[in-house]
């Protein structure tokens, strides 16, 4: 059995927003082994982003980790002080942020900012060494050198996303989280970036997570998939298992809504909306939207069971929709 790089146990994270408590992540557990990529899939509000940010301890002030344990590369992440966290964040592990309008400072040159990032963990490098490393990184992500002298707004979406990837690879991390790294891109660019990520992951022997709402993206990049809904883990299995034999009704809905151009079927969605995350419920959280829910589903919280070689949290597991 391979080394476990990331071990998340019973993680629960809440947010406090003006007197309300939002249950963003509830009792989520999973492991990531050396050399593997696990995808975390779910719609907006499923808690996947909160989960990712908790692992690297980049939560906003009003977030509280209520319970659980995170072991990453041997570190007990949740119990580290801020200073210690700063030392290992971006050295041992990093995150590829989603390219957004102001992901980097708009009034400073890109190269300038990347250099500062380098200096932060490597204060003793000379200017030359820094530039060399940056050029090397740019080559890795297929970007021309002139990007260093440009300002963020002058770059295309695809280029900015690649910069974010280069930024994450700055200090040769062992573990990487891709947080919605392809979401803000057009389909064509998205495809390119996915291919590039695949080859990078292989050539650098990386381990990590891919966070996305897009099951298609996650299935291309990952060996295992964790499906989240309203802060809970509803299913966790290998990519093959999830795509070909989804057990949880929500997962089944997700798989069905993947556009299948080969067979030219209609587009399917999952009817209904996310529940109010500020309520603490004593039932299956998906029940209101579930096509096969019965009375039991509305009164009992399903536990995560091992079924068919993967984990599911559903009272009616195995029933086909």
């Amino acid at each position: 059995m391979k080394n476990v790089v990331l071990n998340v146990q019973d993680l629960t994270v809440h947010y406090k927003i003006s007197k309300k408590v939002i249950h963003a992540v509830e009792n989520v557990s999973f492991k990531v082994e050396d050399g593997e990529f696990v995808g975390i899939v779910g719609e907006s509000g499923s808690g996947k982003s909160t989960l990712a940010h908790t692992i690297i301890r980049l939560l906003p002030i009003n977030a509280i980790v209520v319970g659980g344990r995170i072991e990453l590369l041997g570190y007990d992440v949740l119990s580290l002080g801020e200073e210690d966290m700063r030392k290992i964040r971006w050295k041992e592990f990093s995150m590829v942020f989603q390219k957004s309008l102001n992901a980097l400072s708009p009034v400073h040159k890109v190269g300038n900012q990347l250099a500062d990032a380098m200096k932060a963990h490597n204060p003793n490098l000379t200017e030359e060494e820094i530039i060399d490393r940056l050029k090397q990184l740019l080559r890795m992500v297929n970007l021309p050198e002139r990007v260093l002298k440009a300002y963020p707004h002058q770059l295309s979406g695809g280029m900015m996303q690649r910069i974010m990837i280069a930024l994450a690879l700055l200090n040769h991390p062992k573990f990487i989280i891709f947080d919605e790294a392809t979401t803000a891109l057009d389909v064509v660019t998205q495809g390119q970036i996915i291919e590039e990520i695949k080859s990078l992951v292989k050539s650098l022997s990386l381990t990590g997570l891919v966070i996305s709402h897009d099951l298609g993206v996650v299935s291309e990049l990952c060996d295992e998939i964790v499906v989240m809904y309203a802060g809970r883990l509803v299913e966790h299995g290998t990519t093959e298992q999830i795509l070909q034999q989804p057990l949880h009704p929500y997962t089944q809905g997700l798989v069905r809504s993947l556009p299948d151009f080969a067979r030219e079927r209609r587009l399917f969605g999952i009817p209904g909306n996310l529940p109010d995350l500020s309520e603490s419920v004593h039932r299956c959280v998906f029940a209101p939207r579930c096509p096969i829910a019965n009375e039991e589903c509305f009164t009992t919280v399903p536990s995560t069971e091992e079924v068919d070689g993967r984990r599911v949290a559903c009272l009616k597991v195995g029933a086909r929709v």
Partner: protein
Amino acid sequence: MRFRTDFAKRYLSSRYGLAGLIMFLAMLIMALFAPVIAPYKPTDISHDMLSPPSKVHPFGTDHLGRDVFSRVVYGARVSLTVGFVAAGLSALIGIVIGALSGYIGGVFDEVISKIIDSFLMFPVFFLILIIVAVFGRNLVYIMLVIGLTTWPSNARIMRAQTMSIKEKAFVKIARANGESPMRIIFTHIIPNGMYPVVANSAMQIGGAILTEAALSFLGLGDPSVVSWGKMINDARSYMSFAWWSIVFPGIFTVITVVTFSFIGDGLQQALYPKLSEVRNE
């Protein structure tokens, strides 16, 4: 309807908005009930010249023996009137011109935009000064002139609002239904888009009050009314031995303008509630 109660609730939850509202109500009462509140008539001369604050004259008397407290109370009338009329006129003109410009577009819009930009780049106070100096020193003129020279900032806001509202579904539906542009502008666009202008107007009320005070200070105010600015000007020669005659009118001017700044802030918060600190999922 629900929008209005939400709006009111948000406004009242803002510290500044609430404070401003209370202060405004106090000012309003002072202005409306001036004859009742003021112990003397503002023009009553007495032999008690330049006497310091006392039980009889809580704010002292000026160089003509007039009770400063009474004059300050009556002065509120002038200030509030100037503020509301001038800002109201400015808002009215600004809303109409801004909405028309934003809706009609084209050359008309370009011309109006240039005019708006020119006004905004120009020190309006001196324009007002010249006009009042040259055409006449009465309160109605002053209010009119302030209103006629400060509408561009409102117009600019309304224009931006119009341009975004006219793309909305319900406007397109109205157009498809054959409603005339005038009807669309006045029944759909203006009622929905005018709120930021209202917030701006609150600030303009303060501005108008300060402008009137400055004009009065320069001797260009209406000589027939009691204005705080004029009181300050009158008190100038005596201020070193009668501080009360200059301090109190000024304090009240400041309080009044602060009141409207608070209200403007409260309106801003009600319109654009601050985003919470949490990052979105």
